């Protein structure tokens, strides 16, 4: 059954995309026919009307978003599977399988977009592609090999799921591990091409492998690898959350509601989990860029892209607020009688979040009419100008991470009562750690104004990050230990969330996708008029970088297209499987679905029952 359904769906969208690919290729073919100047090698080809760059923009963005999803999902699908094995809770195994189903169905589309992108690049930017092939040819081969391995592993992993239950589960887990290893390298290899464009190193004479190897090890390669790896988990988590949110909103019965409520919760949890360290990775990347080339750093942070980071702050801020909102809704609705107890702490956290967000979003140079600027004596406000610099931004970002983390801990603990004798001491200890962390972060933030930039960057900001990481890494296991012996006082009720929870999940996913499109534009525009920064100039008519408003319209379009695409893929994946598909993987749910028998608040390992 499963097999049949999947084949059918593969045919369905293969056909659709063939049509689509043809439609895209047609005008390209026309353009090829149009300009082939005699003699000199063609440097660029254009697509009349739409513009070659715009087309590349759309296709590359779709490919990247799909790829991010496809590379992010196996990580937590595999983790879910392990959790399922460790705890013996079948729900996690089913969930992992449902994640993998989403993965399998988007895999082919990702590859398809990759193929279209490649053809378009070769066709539209022959000069650049020639150069890159010269440098990177061996890594193209490696990439192809990795792709074959990944595909084979994925098919084994997916189709072997049911066959490899029981004694062969170990083998299946190993397949999942391999899948992730290959996926990681599939991301790492193309990253070297893109990062080489942004931060090239000099290429000396040498063997083809030596050249590729030299170019691969460019200064921003690893920062981007790490940043993307985490971001992919975030993207995957939130998209799965949004999928669950949508399914929850469209659920026909209580069983579906219970299942998708829970799945939405797990998706949001995975997203937040990845979101917490993400700003650190971004900060590291930014620092490497600044160090590699001050000019590029200034273009990004102080130059023509500086406004982009205010938009980024807005999107991240909404994402933080949205994620917390979902946690809080969970506490209020899934744990009966919790309202009176949690209202006040939630209000405090909300106020801190919004104040931090206000500081983060206050730009260094303000949008002001000329008259306002004349009254202020320039575009810098004498008082609020202090919020505009990195020291303030780093501080509030760290505080927002801490607040979100506390939200998560609060959710984890909700409805439970610690029984361990040392619980009081542990809780006091956690409070002290958190209090000290907040004080350290704020003090360093304020002090950062009075020290040279390099001291701030190398010591203060790093210390802030380490302090926050320390909190994350001490409080989490401590709470885990506490919860192990905790008694559940109030069972969580699944499937009773209001509709706005589903919308919140969708909103979070949209924010993440928008963020990725925004930063894609940032990375591309920071190269300004270079194909390969400082080495190969873009001499086409599209050498300019468009203004933010125009770019934002494109980002919105890309995001919408991606949402529709994903919705379509997921819909195809469930075609004919409505009755047998994931929605009914709630065999363990008994009764009318009002109460869940399984895991309470704790997402990983489900304890606290009995």
């Amino acid at each position, binding site marked *: 059954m499963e097999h049949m359904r999947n084949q059918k769906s593969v045919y369905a969208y293969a056909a659709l995309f063939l049509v689509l690919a043809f439609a895209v290729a047609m005008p390209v073919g026309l353009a090829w026919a149009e300009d082939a100047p005699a003699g000199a090698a063609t440097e660029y080809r254009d697509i009349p009307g739409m513009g070659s760059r715009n087309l590349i923009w759309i296709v590359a963005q779709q490919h990247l978003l799909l790829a991010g999803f496809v590379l992010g999902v196996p990580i937590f699908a595999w983790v879910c599977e392990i959790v399922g094995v460790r705890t013996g809770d079948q729900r996690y195994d089913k969930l992992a399988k449902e994640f993998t189903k989403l993965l399998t169905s988007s895999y082919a589309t990702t590859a398809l977009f990759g193929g279209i992108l490649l053809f378009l690049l070769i066709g539209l930017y022959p000069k650049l592609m020639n150069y890159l092939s010269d440098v990177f040819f061996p890594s193209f081969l490696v990439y192809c090999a990795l792709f074959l391995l990944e595909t084979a592993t994925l098919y084994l992993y997916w189709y072997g799921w049911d066959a490899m239950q029981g004694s062969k589960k170990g083998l299946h887990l190993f397949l999942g591990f391999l899948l992730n290893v290959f996926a990681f390298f599939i991301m790492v290899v193309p990253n070297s091409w893109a990062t080489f464009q942004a931060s090239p190193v*000099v290429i000396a004479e040498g063997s083809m492998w030596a050249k590729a190897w030299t170019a691969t090890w460019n200064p921003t390669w690893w920062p981007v690898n790490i940043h993307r790896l985490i971001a992919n988990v975030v993207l995957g988590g939130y998209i799965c959350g949004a999928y669950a949110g949508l399914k929850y909103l469209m659920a026909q019965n209580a069983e579906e509601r219970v299942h998708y409520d829970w799945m939405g919760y797990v998706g949001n949890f995975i997203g937040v989990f990845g979101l917490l360290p993400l700003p650190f990775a971004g900060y590291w990347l930014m620092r490497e860029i600044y160090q590699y080339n001050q000019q590029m750093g200034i273009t990004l942070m102080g130059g023509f892209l500086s406004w982009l980071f205010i938009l980024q702050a807005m*999107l991240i801020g909404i994402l933080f607020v949205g994620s917390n909102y979902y946690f809080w809704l969970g506490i209020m609705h899934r744990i009966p009688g919790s309202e009176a107890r949690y209202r006040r702490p939630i209000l405090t956290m909300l106020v801190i979040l919004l104040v931090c967000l206000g500081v983060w979003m206050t730009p260094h140079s303000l949008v002001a009419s000329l008259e306002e600027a004349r009254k202020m004596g320039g575009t810098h406000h004498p008082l609020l100008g202090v919020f505009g610099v990195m020291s303030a931004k780093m501080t509030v970002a760290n505080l927002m991470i801490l607040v979100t983390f506390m939200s998560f801990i609060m959710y984890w603990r909700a409805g439970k009562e610690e029984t361990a004798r040392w619980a009081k001491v542990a809780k006091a200890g956690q409070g002290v750690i958190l209090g000290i962390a907040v004080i350290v972060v704020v003090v360093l933030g304020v002090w950062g104004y009075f020290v040279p930039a390099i001291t701030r960057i190398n010591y203060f900001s790093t210390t802030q990050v380490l302090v926050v990481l320390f909190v994350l890494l001490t409080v989490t296991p401590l709470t885990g230990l506490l919860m192990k012996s905790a008694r559940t006082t109030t069972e969580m009720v699944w499937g009773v969330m209001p509709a706005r929870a589903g919308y919140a999940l969708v909103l979070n996913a949209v924010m993440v996708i928008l963020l990725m499109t925004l930063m894609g534009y940032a990375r591309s525009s920071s190269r300004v008029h270079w194909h390969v920064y*400082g*080495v190969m100039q873009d001499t086409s008519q599209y050498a*300019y970088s468009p203004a933010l408003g125009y770019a*934002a319209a494109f980002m919105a379009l890309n995001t919408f297209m991606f*949402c529709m695409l994903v919705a379509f893929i997921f819909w195809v994946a469930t075609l004919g499987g409505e009755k047998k598909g994931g929605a009914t993987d709630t065999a363990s749910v008994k009764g009318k679905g009002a109460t869940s028998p399984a895991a309470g608040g704790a997402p990983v390992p489900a304890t606290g029952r009995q």
Partner: protein
Amino acid sequence: MTEVQLLQTIGMSVVGLGGAILLFVKARFVRVMAFVAIVLGAFSLVALSVPQMASMPPAVEKIDVASIKEKKELAAIGQKIFFGKGQCALCHTIGSSEGRCPDLKGVGAKLTREFIYESLTQPQAYVYKDYEHVGQAKFFPAKMPYINKKPIGLNNNEILAVIAFLQSMSGEEVTINLSELAAPGPAGSGGRKDL
């Protein structure tokens, strides 16, 4: 109507359409998509309300050897080549230990122009064995390329300009005479438009 106004109109229409769907349509999926459209429309409108600025490529510069009248100008051209086409600054720094390769501060005073010329065109002919990288060793496998060959391929004039820049950066007298510069050939070897 300017482009910004057009995009604003589109953004507002999308938000309006989304609002109308939320008001009149009951199908959940359509409602969620309308919600997404409203969010995206609002995002575009915000992005359109901040300062709009495109980044244009700089005006194309042409370098004409015949027009150089002072050694100072030659050094200025060398500076552009050093940080641009010559790609020297991808590895070398001037007065900072952050680079991946030898720092070139004061190199114009330490080395003769002939030695610098040889280092650029025959990079492996004489390698300083006693060169020690300051600070932590970094793993960026690269060796000095032939500057007069592909892919960088500076011509003789350009190499002389770089040497002039290195000398003037070290506070030295520029020993390149303007008469040494080859007259630009018919193919315009003196300067390239993508410099």
